[in-house]
C-alpha cells in the first residue's frame, strides 16, 4: 500500500541523516571550546591558527570544536554535563559558577595572566551619523531628549556591564551620594526604548528598526557593528570613563581529564596570550595585553579610565546580589 514505499524512503533518509549528522572530526584528539554567542567568527579565525601552531610545535593533528550560546546558558550546559574542555566567556560570574561546582579550579583567576582574561573590552556608545544629539559621556544619556538601546541587564551580561558602567560613572560624578546616584540611574533606565534579551537583538533594534539615539554595548561590538553596517552612517563614542569588561578563560579540568585533553586545553588557553592570537583578537576590536600588538593597534583604542567591578561593587558576587538579584537595586529602580 501507500505506506510501504514511504517507510522504505524513511529508512533511506535515516541512513542518509545519520551519515550527515555524524561527527565532523576524524579519529584525532578533539578540544571543545564553550563560548559566548557573538564569538563564533572570532574563534573560527583563532582555531585554525592554533591547530597549525600545535601541528608545528607538537607534530600532532588536533581538531577544535565550538559551542556558542548565551554565556549563562553555556555554563549551565557544562554544569549539566556538556563535556567542554575549555570555556571562553564574557562574564566572570559564569566561570565562577563552574568553580563553585568544582568543575573549574577554585583559583582559576590566578591560573593565567591578567585575571585569566587574555583580552578585554569596555562599554562604549554607537550613535547615528554626525552625533546629532552630541553624546560625549554618561551624563548625556540621562538627558530628557535622549533615547537608549541596550540589552536587558536581567538576561544579558552585556546589559549588566552597561548598568554597572553607568552606576560607576554616577558614583564618581556625584561623589558617592547614593540618593543622586539612584536618581541618575532611574532616569537613565527610563530613557531605554527597548530591552532586548541579548546584545544582538539590541543591535537589530538600533540599526534595522531605527530605534533610539544611542546603542550601548561592548566597544568591540560597536566597532564590529560599525564595520558591518557602514562606517559612514554611525560613529563610535568611547566615554572618558567606563568599565573594564574582562573575558575570562578557564580549563574545565574534570572534563579535559576525562577526554584526555588536559595538555591540549592548557596549551589552547595559553595560546590566546600569544602574539599571533592577540593580533587576531585586536583585529576583532578587542583590547589586548601583548605590548607589541597594543602599540600596533593604539589608534583603534582611545585611552579611557576603566573602572573595575571589584573596586566599586566589591566583586561580582556582591554586584550580582545587590544589583541584579530578584528584588535587588535594579528591580527597585525600575519599580513604579
Amino acid at each position, binding site marked *: 500500500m501507500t505506506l510501504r514505499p514511504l517507510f522504505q524512503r524513511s529508512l533511506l533518509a535515516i541512513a542518509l541523516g545519520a551519515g550527515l549528522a555524524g561527527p565532523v572530526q576524524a579519529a584525532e584528539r578533539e578540544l571543545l571550546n564553550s563560548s559566548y554567542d557573538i564569538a563564533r567568527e572570532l574563534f573560527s579565525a583563532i582555531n585554525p591558527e592554533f591547530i597549525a601552531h600545535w601541528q608545528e610545535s607538537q607534530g600532532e593533528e588536533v581538531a577544535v570544536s565550538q559551542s556558542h550560546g*548565551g554565556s*549563562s*546558558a553555556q555554563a*549551565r550546559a557544562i554544569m549539566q554535563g556538556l563535556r567542554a574542555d575549555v570555556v571562553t566567556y564574557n562574564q566572570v560570574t559564569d566561570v565562577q*559558577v563552574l568553580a563553585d561546582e568544582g568543575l573549574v579550579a577554585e583559583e582559576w583567576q590566578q591560573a593565567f595572566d591578567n585575571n585569566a582574561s587574555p583580552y578585554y573590552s569596555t562599554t562604549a556608545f554607537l550613535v547615528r551619523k554626525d552625533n546629532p544629539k552630541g553624546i560625549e559621556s554618561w551624563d548625556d544619556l540621562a538627558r530628557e531628549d535622549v533615547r537608549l538601546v541596550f540589552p*536587558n541587564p*536581567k*538576561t544579558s551580561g552585556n546589559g549588566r556591564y552597561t548598568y554597572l558602567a553607568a552606576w560607576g560613572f554616577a558614583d564618581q560624578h556625584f561623589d558617592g551620594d547614593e540618593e543622586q546616584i539612584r536618581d541618575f540611574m532611574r532616569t537613565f533606565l527610563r530613557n*531605554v*526604548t*527597548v*530591552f*532586548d*534579551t541579548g546584545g544582538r*537583538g539590541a543591535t*537589530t*533594534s538600533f540599526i*534595522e*528598526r*531605527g*530605534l533610539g539615539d544611542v546603542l550601548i554595548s561592548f566597544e568591540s561590538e560597536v566597532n564590529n557593528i560599525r564595520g558591518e553596517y557602514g562606517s559612514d552612517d554611525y560613529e563610535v563614542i568611547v566615554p572618558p570613563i567606563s568599565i573594564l569588561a574582562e573575558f575570562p578563560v578557564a580549563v574545565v579540568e574534570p572534563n579535559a581529564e576525562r577526554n584526555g585533553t588536559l595538555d591540549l586545553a592548557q596549551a589552547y588557553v595559553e595560546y590566546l596570550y600569544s602574539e599571533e592570537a592577540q593580533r587576531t583578537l585586536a583585529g576583532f576590536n578587542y583590547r589586548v595585553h601583548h605590548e607589541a600588538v597594543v602599540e600596533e593597534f593604539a589608534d583603534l583604542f582611545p585611552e579611557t579610565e576603566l573602572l573595575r567591578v571589584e573596586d566599586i561593587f566589591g566583586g561580582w558576587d556582591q554586584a550580582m546580589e545587590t544589583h*541584579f*538579584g*530578584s*528584588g535587588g537595586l535594579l*528591580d527597585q529602580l*525600575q*519599580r*513604579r
Partner: protein
Amino acid sequence: MSTRALPFAIGSAPKRVLPGFGLSLGVSLLFISLVLLLPMTGLFGQLAGLSLAEYWAIISDGRVVASYTVTIGAAAVAALVNGAFGLLLAWVLVRYEFPGKRLLDALMDLPFALPTAVAGITLATLYSSNGWMGRLLEPLGLQVAYTWVGIALAMAFTSIPFVVRTVQPVLEDLPVEVDEAALTLGANDGTAFRRVILPHLWPALVTGTGLAFVRSLGEFGAIIFIAGNMPYETEITALMIFVRLQEYDYAGASAIASVVLFVSLALLLAINIWQGRFIKRLHGGGG
C-alpha cells in the same frame, strides 16, 4: 472527506470486544510515563525545595504579576481576534469555491510549520516603524512593534491554525437542511447565521479559541523579538521564567512555570469537560 477534526470529541466507546486492549494500554502508559510524567518529576523536585511562603513570594512578585496581566490580556485579545478571523477563514474555505482556495487552505498551517523564532524576527522586521507594515500603520497612530499590540499580534500569528482547523470540519459536516430550514423561515443571512449556524459551531469555536489562548500563554520565541520587554509594560511571563534561568534560579523558574502549567492544564481540562457535556446535550448522548 476531511482528515481534520475536533481535537477533543467525546463519544460513547463500545464494549470491550476488540483485541489489543492490553497492548495499546501498555504502549500508551509506558510512553506517557516515560516521556511525559517522568520528566515532570524534575519540575516538582524543584518545587519541593521551596516553602509555601517562598513559592508565594516568587509567583506574587509585582513584576511577575504585571507579566501575568500583559500575557493574559494579550492572549485574550489574540484569541478573540483569532475567533473572528478564524471563523471567517473557515467559513470561506468550506462554503465557497474560488481560485486559489487550495493555496489559502495550505497557508493556514504555515504558523505551525514555521519555527517560532523565525516568525518572531520576521514579524518584528515587518511591523517596526521602518518595516513594510510599520511604515503604513505608524502614520495612522498605530504602533505595533514593542507594544502589547505586537505581543498580541505574535500570539495571534502562532495560534490561528487552532481556530481554523477546529471549526472547519464541524462546518463541513453541517447538513444543507440546516441552511434551508433557516432560509425558508424567511430569516436574512445575518439572523440565520446567528440563530442557526452559530449554535452548531459554538463548541468548536470555543475549543479552538481556548486552544489558541493556551498556546499563547506559553509562547516565547515568536514574541520576544517584537515585545520590547519593558518592565511592567511589555514583559511576558515566559520571559520571567527565562530570566530566572539566566540567574541559575531553577526553583524560581519552576515556580513561575508551574503557574502557567496549572492554568493551562485547568483550561484544557475545562474545555474538554465542557465540550463533552455540550456535545452530549446537542446529540442526546449519541456518538
